[in-house]
């Protein structure tokens, strides 16, 4: 059975990993999700900037949110290709995602990360599998 948009949002926010990293949902509507991450030192790499793994984590999350808010169906990541464009060491990072193509089981979608000044920090495109209850 498909979940409601509220149940989908709750399933993300209830995840221990979601709060362990420090994510905040700014906006959550069907196909229109905004995610925020205040930058903290615990998320840094040895260069003193936001770790690449955090970028990857946030991109996967926002793409998954874009898909699940639209389909109300659980999904799993098959592939994610990330381009890292700029470092970030302060303020917060905002993420947005969108579906590029949706089939019955396979969805292709993309996500982008921005700093507070609107500079794109990273961009990812991924392939996701919908987990249908049947």
């Amino acid at each position, binding site marked *: 059975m498909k979940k409601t948009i509220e149940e989908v949002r709750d399933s993300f926010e209830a995840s*221990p990993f979601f709060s362990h990293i420090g994510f905040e949902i700014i906006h959550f509507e069907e196909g229109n999700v905004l995610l925020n991450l205040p930058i903290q030192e615990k998320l840094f790499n*040895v260069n003193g900037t936001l770790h690449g793994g955090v970028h990857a984590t*946030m991109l996967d999350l926002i793409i998954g949110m874009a898909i699940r808010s639209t389909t109300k169906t659980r999904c799993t990541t098959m592939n994610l290709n*990330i381009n*890292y464009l700029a470092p970030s060491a302060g303020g917060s990072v905002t993420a947005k995602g969108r579906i590029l193509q949706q089939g019955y089981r396979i969805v292709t979608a993309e996500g982008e990360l921005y700093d507070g000044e609107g500079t794109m920090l990273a961009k990812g495109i991924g392939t996701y599998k919908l987990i249908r209850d049947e």
Partner: protein
Amino acid sequence: MRGQSSFFEHIGCTKHRGREGEILLTLQVQPEILTVEGTIPPGIFSSMLDIVIGSTIAELVQQPTTTVNLNINYFDFTNCGPFTAVGTIIWRNEKLIAGEGSVLDRDGNLTAKAAGTFKVMGRSIE
């Protein structure tokens, strides 16, 4: 081995050397890094792969590096580890190095695999 990042410690990774001197990452999965369904978030594997390839490169050049591109394939999220990640260098020039990495479960099954391009910061590789 070069130092490790605060994010590395935040997700619970440890770094050590294998029998042939290669850098290995291990992850004992803790409850705080799971999803609400009790599975491993893809970001954990992405992070391990970014770290192990970057560390393998940094160990070679003894300089900090930054990730330019990382392409990850995920195969299994149901296994709860522990996991081991290992990286190799597949190509290099003066400023850019390409590497790949694998995450294996306790039985040696491939769980995730990535290939990436990293830039060496500071002076060129000699």
